[in-house]
């Protein structure tokens, strides 16, 4: 499904700011599996996800998704295969446009965009039904600008948009990090549902919470990994409350 072979990426080569971000990374992910990448801050997890998404070209190596060699494909072309949710809830939606228009944009991900109406008549019912599935009552606000929604609501919509057309690969870049625990819970539940429903292949960037030596290379089944995902998430919440405890004690 996803194959990353011997990928290299150096930022600012041959300058004092040179960063060897990816050095010979190999990664194979089978169809329908859920993989979490863990590592210390600055170890290159985001860089790996960006390399797969095509935010930049890698210096060496090969990336294959669903049988297509995408190494030289620009980001917008890889979008035909990839659905993506960013860490920042504001990155995944166009704030000045309505919920309905944002979804209409996502519904044509990777397809030709011509002069047909973006909001076709028969589209409204499907949209309302799927937005209702988020359980946030947003189906009544389809004409509101997305910029008027909360971060959690926007992230939920981004997730819905990323999976609107079934992607070959779903990239989640620590997509609950900026949310409060309750919204994060909701997003995790929605992610689980979408992934289970469409049997998606998912690469998720998580923060390290305990030592998982060699975990990056482990290949697990969906169920194990969803459990592991829960664990990571709880760990993140623990982290946060611990930070609060410290703050309360010292500030």
């Amino acid at each position: 499904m996803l194959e990353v072979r011997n990928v290299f990426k150096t930022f600012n080569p041959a300058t004092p700011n040179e960063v060897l971000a990816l050095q010979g990374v190999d990664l194979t992910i089978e169809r329908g599996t859920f993989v979490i990448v863990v590592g210390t801050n600055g170890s290159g997890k985001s860089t790996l996800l960006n390399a797969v998404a095509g935010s930049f070209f890698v210096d060496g190596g090969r990336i294959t998704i669903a049988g297509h060699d995408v190494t030289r494909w620009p980001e917008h072309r890889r979008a035909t295969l990839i659905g993506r949710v960013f860490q920042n809830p504001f990155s995944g939606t166009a704030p000045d446009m309505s919920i309905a228009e944002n979804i209409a944009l996502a519904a044509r991900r990777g397809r030709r965009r011509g002069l047909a109406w973006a909001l076709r008549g028969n589209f409204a019912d499907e949209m309302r039904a799927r937005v209702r599935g988020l359980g946030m009552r947003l189906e009544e606000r389809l004409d509101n600008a997305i910029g008027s929604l909360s971060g959690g609501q926007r992230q939920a919509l981004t997730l819905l948009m990323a999976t609107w057309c079934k992607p070959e690969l779903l990239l989640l870049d620590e997509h609950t990090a900026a949310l409060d625990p309750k919204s994060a819970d909701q997003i995790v539940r929605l992610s689980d549902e979408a992934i289970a429903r469409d049997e998606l292949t998912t690469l998720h960037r998580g923060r390290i919470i305990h030592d998982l030596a060699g975990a990056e290379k482990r290949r697990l089944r969906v169920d194990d990994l969803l459990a592991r995902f829960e664990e990571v998430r709880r760990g993140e919440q623990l982290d946060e409350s611990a930070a609060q405890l410290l703050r309360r004690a010292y500030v």
Partner: protein
Amino acid sequence: MTLLLGALTIGLILSLLALGVFISFRVFDFPDITTDGSITLGAAIAAVLLVKGVNPFVASAAGFCGGAVAGATTGVLHTKCKINGLLSGILVMTALYSINLHVMGKSNVPLLSAATFASDAERILTALKGGDTALHVLGWEVAARDAAVLVLVLATIVLAALALYAFLRTDLGTAMRATGDNPQMIRALGVDVGNMTIIGLALANGLIGLSGALLAQYQGFADVQMGIGMVVWGLASVIIGEALVGTTQLGLVITGAIMGSVLFRLLVAIALRAGLNPNDLKLMTATFVFAALILPGLVARARKGAGRA
């Protein structure tokens, strides 16, 4: 009355300029200086064709196409050659000055004897009314020619605005708006941001070129200097329009830009009538835009200051 009609007509013609500036500055957040050159290019192409006896409709369409090519060039310089957006526009605008002189062959092309949309409008009206050269509207007597031209211009603007509104709600148009709103997102949804910017700038400068083509026909000449400061003029119209409608709803913003252009032209006509030196016009326009740009920030700061005190 003639003065009012004239201001109204020019305001409507320049509202195409305002719509173009709206697309580049507001939809794409791209400070596109090409405007000053593309409005003259549209006028130059139309004027030269009209002198050759080409149909005014075809000549105006050619003005649109000329502007569109200029805009696309700026887009290519910016997205493919990675030149700063402002500088891309300045380069194309500068080059256009020479190109416009070449197109026209001299610095001014008069259209006194050529058939223009204005003379066409007059002809249609006389055919309908039969020879009478004056009309009575609401008790005022207006020259038939002026009224006919105004009606034709109004119809053109309404059509152009409706077409633009419809376009911005298609798959392509929404992708274009999202490109300005959140490029990272639209790239992840499979849109080539570079190409979208090129198409958008072509559309914007096409409208601006059309505006120039109509302006040349209305005032009866094309001049190589006529584009100077037009980008600021368009921006002033857009800003007034935003203040008038006060929302970000697409249909209203487009209507607002047109109303802003007409209102601004009327204000200018009144100021000139009241004795403003025409040489000061560009200074006044620039000062106005400057004030409109910084005043909201100053007011907000003053409010915050007052709140704290």
